[in-house]
Every structure is written in structure tokens, then in C-alpha cells.
């Protein structure tokens, strides 16, 4: 007598794919918003020979309305140095990078106190700029 083996169907249900992908989508969106300053409006100044910082410990933005933000949160310039000191803590050199994003038209009266505050907190400044396009 021949006993036929049952065929085991081991296919992944296609219906679940949508749910998995949707969960992944939510995961990425939440991850992107964790240190989010993408909602802030600013245009970088031009620069040459730009490099990517190896570490990023804090992000300071001076937007097109000359408002200062620390890690996406609005902050008065007077308290910026103290807040940065708390954020940077006792981190060794090389791990105290502060990404500074200043709108290209912001004036010295707004960005100089910010630079001073970063310097006072012992932060290592990294100005975020846009690669200069050579006009011919």
C-alpha cells in the first residue's frame, strides 16, 4: 500500500505583509522624530570642502525668524549655555560636537551669542553648510 505524503504548505501569508510594512513605517517615522528639527525653516550658507561630523551630541538651529532652537525645542539664548553643559556633561573631546544650523541671512546680533554659548559650554562647533556651486 502506498501512503502518500501530505504536502505541507509553508508559504508566508501575503496578507500580513501590509501590516509588517505599516509597522516598519511607524517605526521609522518615530525614529526620525526623536531628534527632529526638520520642521524648522532655515537655509544653509554656502561653503567649500565640507565634512560630515563623526559624532552629533546636540543640534542648535537659528531659523529664518532668528529664533534659537536646541534639539528642535525653542530656547532663549540666555539659557543655551547651561542647557548645553547639561547635555554635553563630562563627555571627552571628540564627543562634544554641536551641530550649528544658522539661516544664511541671520545677522550677527542673533548668531554670535549662540556661538558664544556653545564655546562657553565647551562644545565643539560644526557649522552645517551647503556645498558651494561653482558659477562659470
Amino acid at each position, binding site marked *: 500500500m502506498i501512503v502518500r505524503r501530505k504536502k505541507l504548505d509553508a508559504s508566508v501569508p*501575503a*496578507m500580513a*505583509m*501590509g501590516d*509588517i*510594512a*505599516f509597522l*516598519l*513605517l511607524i517605526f*521609522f*517615522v518615530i525614529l*526620525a522624530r526623536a531628534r527632529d528639527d*526638520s520642521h524648522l525653516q532655515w537655509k*544653509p*550658507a*554656502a*561653503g*567649500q*570642502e*565640507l*565634512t*560630515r*561630523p563623526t559624532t552629533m551630541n546636540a543640534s542648535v538651529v*537659528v531659523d529664518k525668524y532668528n529664533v534659537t532652537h536646541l534639539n528642535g525645542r525653542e530656547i532663549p539664548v540666555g539659557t543655551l549655555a547651561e542647557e548645553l553643559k547639561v547635555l554635553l556633561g563630562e563627555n571627552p573631546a571628540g564627543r562634544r560636537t554641536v*551641530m*550649528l544650523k*544658522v*539661516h*544664511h*541671512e*541671520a*545677522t*550677527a*546680533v542673533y*548668531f*554670535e*551669542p549662540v*556661538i*558664544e554659548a*556653545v*564655546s*562657553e559650554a*565647551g562644545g*565643539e*562647533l*560644526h*557649522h*552645517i*553648510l*551647503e*556645498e558651494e556651486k561653482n558659477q562659470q
Partner: protein
Amino acid sequence: MKLNRTKLLVEPPASATSDIAFILIVFFLVCASVEPDKGRAQVLPRAEPEPQKDKQSQTIDVELTRNAVILNGNPLPPQIFRKSIELKLADKTRDEDKIVAVKSRKEVPYSHWMAVTGIIEDSGGIITMQLEEEQTVQVK
């Protein structure tokens, strides 16, 4: 005679949802990566309330106006400024002699400030910012 009604409500195929969601993921990731993250590192000495004038031999003073550069009191065009600052810093060996005090007027835009400080750093200068301090004077 019976007439069969055609079904108007048609369910979308469930197998397409994964493709739609995947395209959405790609879209969000591409949107997220547009934010610029390249730039230039800048070393600034820690802020001091008063500069130590007696220790420094001769600091180079650079004053910035809205679109001009003044080097030790002489207004210069950008190309000549680069050559002049390179010449001034060429013979300096000690770090304290390479200090360039940058003073900006209130209306100086960030793009201009970055361009000038970039030239100074490329020439080997160490930037310090000269800021006006607010003092409260009590009048009797």
C-alpha cells in the same frame, strides 16, 4: 427572465498593500535624508570675560560690516584680504600670535561671517570673537 446585477463594489487586492506600504517607507526615508548634515568644524577658544592683552604680542583685528572686511583699520576687497591675512600669519609660529580678533557689526549676515572666518582659518589663524559686553552703570 432573471437579470443578474453586476457587482459594483470590488475589493482592492490585498496583495498590493505590501507594495503600497513599501513605497511609503521609501518615500519617508528619502524625505528624511534631504536634511543637510555636512559642514565645517570650527575651533573657538572658551569665552573669557576680558582678553589677556599683555600676553599677546599683536593680535590681528578684523572688523566685518554688512559686505566688507576691515583688516587692522583698512577696508579690503575679499581677494586682497585673503592675501593680506596669509602674509600677516605666515611668519607667526606661536599659537597666541595667530589669534585673529573678529568683530562683527550687528547687521553682518551669517554667510558673510562664515566666508571671512573660513579664509582666516584656511590661512592658519585662530579665531576669537570680540563681543560688546553689556554693563549696567548706576548713576547717583
